């Protein structure tokens, strides 16, 4: 039986392996990232899965990191906002958010961008703005940057598709 006295969790975070000794099973993935790994890009807006500011990818899927116990994710691959850009070269979604002014205060932005990356990966929305809006509805933006966010997601998705075509050709 797996009673864990000393809790250890192994995660790959933005490609880096981490073996983390946890003194407390209550630590959520979000608090692990922010308070123990120094990755403060992921934001805590509600801590209850109701705003999306904490969105990260776990094994390639977008989830609310505030509602995941870190210990339970043992063996997972985590991607956060800090892991998207290659140095100064932004991920297409990041670049599109700037170009379309898909944010104002910027607090929800890391979650919006990670959610958009997850959405594009899921591939269900296509180029239908209505499907994008629905699929981005788990990310609140109190500043009201939704118009730019939707444009940014569609634009980035199109660019990524044409880049892939370019690579294939």
């Amino acid at each position, binding site marked *: 039986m*797996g009673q864990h006295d000393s809790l250890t969790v192994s995660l790959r975070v933005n490609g880096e392996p981490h073996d983390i000794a946890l003194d407390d099973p*209550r630590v959520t993935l979000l608090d692990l990232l922010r308070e123990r790994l120094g990755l403060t890009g992921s934001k805590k807006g509600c801590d209850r899965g109701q705003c999306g500011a904490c969105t990260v990818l776990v094994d390639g*899927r977008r989830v609310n990191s505030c509602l995941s116990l870190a210990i339970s994710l*043992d063996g997972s691959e985590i991607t956060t906002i800090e892991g998207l850009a290659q140095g100064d070269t932004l991920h297409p979604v990041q670049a599109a958010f700037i170009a379309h002014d898909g944010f104002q205060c910027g607090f929800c932005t890391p979650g919006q961008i990670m959610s958009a990356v997850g959405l594009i990966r899921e591939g269900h929305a296509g180029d239908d703005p209505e499907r994008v809006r629905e699929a*981005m509805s788990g990310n609140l933006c109190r500043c009201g940057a939704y118009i730019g966010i939707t444009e940014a997601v569609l634009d980035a998705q199109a660019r990524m598709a044409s880049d892939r075509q370019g690579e294939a050709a």
Partner: protein
Amino acid sequence: MNRFDYVRAQTVAEAVSAASEPGAAYLAAGTNLLDLMKGGVTRPNRLVDVTHLPDLDRIERLPDGGFRVGALVRNSDLAYDPTFAKAYPSVAEALLSGASAQLRNAATVAGNLMQRTRCPYFYDPASACNKREPGAGCEARGGETRLHAILGWSEHCIATHPSDFCVSLVALDAEVEIAGHEGTRKVSLDAFHRLPGDAPQHESVLTPGELIVALHLPAASAAFADHSRYMKIRDRTSYAFAVVSAAASLRLDHGRIVEGRLALGGVALKPWRAREAEVVLAGAEISETLFRQAADAALVAAKPSGDNAFKIELARRLIVRTLARAAAGTPARMPALPASAFASEKDTLHA
């Protein structure tokens, strides 16, 4: 959040044993449990993590044509499973109308069944609640009750079950496969959740330690696939719990309903199978009048539990609309706004 022992179960038997202790709770994705623990609504002293159990994340088509869906299958994986969604499109539509993409990516099938009510008095530890503390009273009575139950409630509890998924499932005779000390048993979903009566703390038929391991959809229910819809009325366009929802599935023969299924959400402490309405539908000719009669039958016993009489009329109209959508046919593609009143017109045309 209180301190707890964390136990990672490696087998179902281990899990059942570990969770049989008083104060233990199962942890799957945690999307509801952690929310409740952070709010001080529940304070389990042991979490039994079942997410590492093998083989519970499969969607299997059984030899008889039915489906067995593992308890750990994520909501989005089930909704986007092409074979499953084709057989049970209203289930996929219900799943995709729930919560957000992030939550659907994490939340499990079993966790969805085990969701607790969103009653604000249940969520507010300073309010009296018979669910949290048996015998404490129900402070929702006489309080802010716009979204509370209109069917099956009691003086002891007027909360509603928040799931969309379960509403579509209960209409299609889904069954729950449960593992316990004595092996496994199957319970119909309709019998799985309990109405409050005088013991609203007992929300399901699970006994201590029992673990949901799978969900079964009978092959016969796939016969409704061409005429199955879910509709969900919300206070905003997306990412909101249902004010009222409905699942309707019809089996048609040249404009006549051979068999109809109807269930309601947001109206009671369990997903509400409206069998009285199904009796009205069976063998009848499709018409708006028929749908109204079915709605009336479904709501014969409805009564407001507070300032929520509008939900009865809303449910009546929603039943009519959902039956009409089901009769029109399952759309070829999932609507852009699943289950929404604003799903575009072309989505509601025949498949």
